[in-house]
C-alpha cells in the first residue's frame, strides 16, 4: 500500500521543534540514527509530515528522499495526522480470524483512505492496531474512546454516520 500524503496544514509548535532537535542531537553520529529519530518525531508530532522530515534530514545531514524512503518502508510511520475521530481497527489474532481485515477494507472504501491515513478534512483517520484486550468482542474497533465489538461489515456505514 502506498501511503497517502496528508494535505492537512502542518500545525507544529516551536516547542515541538526544540524537542525534535534534542532527539536528533542525542542520536547524531549513530549510523542508524534515522529510525530512532523518526520514532521520536512521530511521538512528538503524531505523524511525519514533510516539515518534520526536513528537520530530520537537515539535522542528520542526509537526503530528504532517504528519510522519506524509510518513513514509507515501515508501516508504523504515518504521513497523516490522527483525525478528529481516530478509528483503530484491531488486527490482533482473534479479531483477525473473525474478519477484521474485511472491516478495515470496508472503512477504507467508505472513507477513501487507507490505514495510517487521514481524510482531507481532518475528520477521520484509520489506524491498524494490535490486540486491545477485547478478544471476546472480536472483531473490534474503537473510535476515540468508544468501543465497537462483534462487528460485521454491514455495521460500518451506520457507525460512521453517527460521526459525520
Amino acid at each position, binding site marked *: 500500500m502506498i*501511503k497517502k500524503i496528508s494535505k492537512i496544514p502542518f500545525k507544529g509548535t516551536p516547542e515541538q521543534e526544540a524537542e525534535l532537535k534534542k532527539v536528533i542531537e542525542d542520536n547524531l553520529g549513530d549510523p542508524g540514527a534515522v529510525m530512532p529519530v523518526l520514532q521520536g518525531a512521530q511521538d512528538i508530532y503524531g505523524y511525519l509530515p*514533510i516539515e518534520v522530515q526536513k528537520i530530520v534530514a537537515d539535522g542528520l545531514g542526509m537526503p*530528504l*528522499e*532517504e528519510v522519506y*524512503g524509510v518513513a514509507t518502508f515501515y508501516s508504523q510511520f504515518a504521513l497523516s495526522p490522527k483525525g478528529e475521530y481516530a478509528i483503530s481497527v484491531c488486527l490482533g489474532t482473534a479479531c483477525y480470524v473473525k474478519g477484521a481485515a474485511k472491516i478495515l477494507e470496508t472503512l477504507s472504501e467508505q472513507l477513501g483512505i487507507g490505514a495510517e491515513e487521514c481524510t482531507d478534512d481532518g475528520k477521520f483517520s484509520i489506524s491498524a492496531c494490535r490486540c486491545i484486550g477485547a478478544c471476546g468482542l472480536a472483531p473490534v474497533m474503537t473510535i476515540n474512546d468508544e468501543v465497537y465489538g462483534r462487528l460485521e461489515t454491514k455495521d460500518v456505514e451506520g457507525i460512521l454516520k453517527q460521526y459525520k
Partner: protein
Amino acid sequence: MENVNIKINGMPMSVPAGSTIIEACKLAGIDIPTLCYMKDMNEIGACRMCVVEVKGARSLVAACVYPVNEGMEVITNSPKVIESRKTTLELILSTHDRKCLSCSRSGKCELQTLCRELGVEDAARFDGARPTYDIDATQWLVRDNNKCVLCRRCVAACNDQYAGVIGANARGFDTHIGCAFEQPLSNVACIACGQCIVNCPVGALREKDDTDRVFEALADPEKVVVVQTAPAVRAALGEEFGMEMGTNVEGKMAAALRRMGFDKVFDTDFGADLTIMEEGYEFIDRVQNGGVLPMITSCSPGWVKFLEHYYPDLIPHLSTCKSPQTMQGAITKSYWAEKQGIDPHKIVSVSVMPCVAKKFEITRDDENGAGADLQDVDISISTRELASMIERVGLDFVSLPDEDFDNPLGEDTGAAVIFGATGGVMEAALRTAADVLEGKDLENVDYKEVRGTAGIKEATYKVAGMDVKVAVASGAKNAAILMDKVSKGEADYHFIEIMACPGGCVNGGGQPIIPAKVKNFTDYKAVRASALYKADEAATLRKSHKNPEIIKLYDEYLGKPNSHKAHELLHTSYVPRKKYMD
C-alpha cells in the same frame, strides 16, 4: 598482494586475496551476469543475477560481493545456477512493461541482453498484477518506472552526486524509485547531471529526446541550421558504432553532420578557447583587483545548478563566464550572423553535448547574448541522440571520411579539446593566464598535476612570482567537499575547476552507455580522456589565446577580453535555488 588458490568450474586458479568471486571469474575469462552491481558505487548483492554455487555453502551466493578464500570451489554454470538466474529474470519481467521495440535502450539494454543470453523464453511465466506508473519528465531527462528493475544503480549514482533526490519509496510490491513525497523530479534539487541515466541498465531513465526538433529544423528551407560539438563528444561517439573506446572520431563526426544537412558544422572547441580568454582575464582581474577568490569555473551546468541549490551563498565565487556552449551560440547569432549577412532569427543553433544538463542550461535566463528573443542555443542534444540521428538517416559512420569543421567557428587549439576531461579547463586557463601574467610566450604547456581521474586534485604553480593555488574536483560529491572548505574559509585556493560528472564531460550524462560488464572492469574515464590528451599533444596550437580566429574575433568585434561587448554576449548571471520544494 597475497594470492589464494581456488577452483572455478574445476579449474585451479590463483587469484589475489580479497577479490570477490566476480573478480576472480573475470580473471578466469568468465563473465558473471549482473544487474545491480556497479563497482565501488552499488555493491548491494540485491538482484541475485550473479548467483553461483560455492562448495559447502548453504545456498547460492552473490558473486559480486562474496569474497574468495583459500581452497574455495566455485561453480558458475550448473543447471541450478542457470535455473535460478532465469527465474530471477522471469520475476523481473513479470512487472516489466516489455515494450522493447519502442524502447530507447533496445539493443543496449542489460535486461534484454541477459534474457537473450540465458534463453528466457516464457516471459509471461509469472504474469499477474502489474503496477503502472506515470512518466516523470523534465526538460533534461525522463524517468519511466514501468521499465524499472529496482536495481538502485540510479539511486547510488544520485547519492554519489551528493544530491540524493531519488530513492526507493514504499515497500514490497509497491516499491518504486521516486523523490521525497512523490514530487516530480522537476520540483526537487536534481542537478540534471544525468549520471542516473548512464548507470541505468534498462530504459527506465533516458534523456529528453530532442532529435525530432532537429530534424524539423533541418527540413525547413527557411532556416540556417548551425551545429557545434563539444570536446568530449568526439572521444565517445565512436563507441555507439562499435569502435574501440578512446577513438577520436572528430573527422567522421564532422562528415556525418554535414551529410545530415547542417549548413555549418562548427566546433564548441572554439567556444572553449573563447571561454579561456574571458575566464582567464576575469581570473587575472580578480587576483589583481581584490575580487572574490577562489574563483570557480562555470562551464558545467550540472555543477552550476548544484551550487545554486546546495551552496547558494557561494554564487559570487562562480565565474560570470557562460559555458563554451552558449558562448559559441551567442557568437554564432551575433558576430558570425553579421559577417554572413544572415538574419539571426533565421538561425537554428544546435549543440551536441556529452551532457543532459546542457538542455537545461540553454533555457536559463541571461543565455541570450545576441538579443532578448535570440536564445544562444536553440536545441541541445546528447552524444547518444546524435548517434541515433546518424542511424536514422542511414549513414555508415565507420566508413565515413574524416572531414574538417567549418571556419571561422571551427578553429581550435589543444587547450580547448582537453575541456572534456577533469582538469582540462584548469590546464587551459593556466596556459593562457601564465603567458599573460609573465608577458611572454612560455614554452611549458603541461600542467600534469591537474590531470588524471582522481576526484580531487590540488597543485601550486609559480606564475609571475606568485604562488597560484589551484584545486580541481569532478563529481558533485567531491565538489561538495571543496565547497564545505570554501564556506568555512579553510580554502586558500585562487582558482577551482569543477565538473559535475565524475571524470568530467567524457563521463557525462549524455555520453554513450557503457554496459556494467565493461564498466566494472575498465578505467573508462581515463580511456576516453586519453583521446583528448592525444589530440592536444598533436595540435600545433596549444594555447587558447593563440587561436587565430579568436584573435580575429577580438580585433574585429569584441575589443578585448571582458570588454563591455564581451560582457553583454559572453557572461551570465546565477540565481539562488532551494534545496527543498515549497
